[in-house]
């Protein structure tokens, strides 16, 4: 990995961590667990399109580990990790079908899968099927939050594309 790329990945990770931290300081809109914006994913998506899947994985998983340490390691770490693995797998599988003008679509799909994966984790941890009751809300929240973060990542990527090119040469 070229040094430039490494540094760029590190900066994106730091940005993602800051976004994650700031977001956790904002009071939640609803009392429902799992309904949140996921601003940090702007940077994962950006890394996936601007750099490569390895850098994106670095941004995502280092952010999850460090973010959970800052927030106090707990159950939230397991949820984050499961959601991260599920959505990142989908992101890798589907990336080739979505060009840079469809980043937001990929983001929405990943957000939905992220929420569903977290909900299933909750079912296992709580040992209760009643939690599936939240599925519709989490899909709605995934669509809205995913569209928002995806559009952010898309705008940033399209604007910065000409500067990013040189990293990948």
């Amino acid at each position: 990995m070229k040094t430039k790329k490494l540094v760029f990945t590190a900066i994106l990770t730091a940005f993602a961590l800051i976004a994650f931290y700031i977001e956790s300081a904002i009071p939640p809109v609803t009392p429902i667990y799992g309904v949140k914006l996921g601003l940090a994913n702007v940077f994962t998506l950006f890394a996936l399109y601007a750099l490569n899947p390895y850098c994106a994985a670095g941004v995502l998983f280092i952010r999850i580990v460090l973010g959970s340490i800052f927030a106090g390691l707990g159950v939230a770490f397991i949820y984050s990790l499961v959601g991260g693995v599920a959505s990142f797998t989908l992101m890798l599988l589907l990336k080739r079908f979505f060009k840079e003008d469809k980043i937001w679509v990929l983001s929405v799909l990943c957000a939905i899968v992220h929420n569903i994966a977290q909900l299933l984790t909750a079912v296992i941890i709580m040992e209760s099927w009643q939690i599936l009751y939240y599925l519709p809300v989490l899909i709605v929240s995934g669509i809205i939050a995913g569209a928002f973060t995806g559009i952010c990542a898309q705008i940033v990527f399209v604007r910065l594309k000409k500067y990013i090119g040189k990293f990948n040469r």
Partner: protein
Amino acid sequence: MKNRVWIIIFSAVLLICLGAWIFVTNFNFSTNIVGIYQDNRLVKTIDLNSVTEETEINLSSEKGNNTILVSNGHIRMKYADCPDKICVKHGDLTESGTPIICLPHKVIIQFENPNSDVDAVAGAE
């Protein structure tokens, strides 16, 4: 596919989910069991969702008389011959609120199955 196609697909899913959510919240499939206690003993349990018509339950002891009104999904103290009538003023028993308590007559009306699973999820973070 065009952006417009995706927007239509996601809007459709969004509407379906909102519909499902409204459906799930308005039609309570679970039981809603309320327990009535007198002198710390469970006197009666009622599933509020299975009540079809308004019924009155009379509770009397040497301490005094209470009349409880039960209708579908609701339960409240209709009458009490105690001086303060706090339990009557309490109104309907709500899941988020406190139990209905008639202190002078030692009558308590409360939910038997607070949705502990749901609360556990909300408090997981």
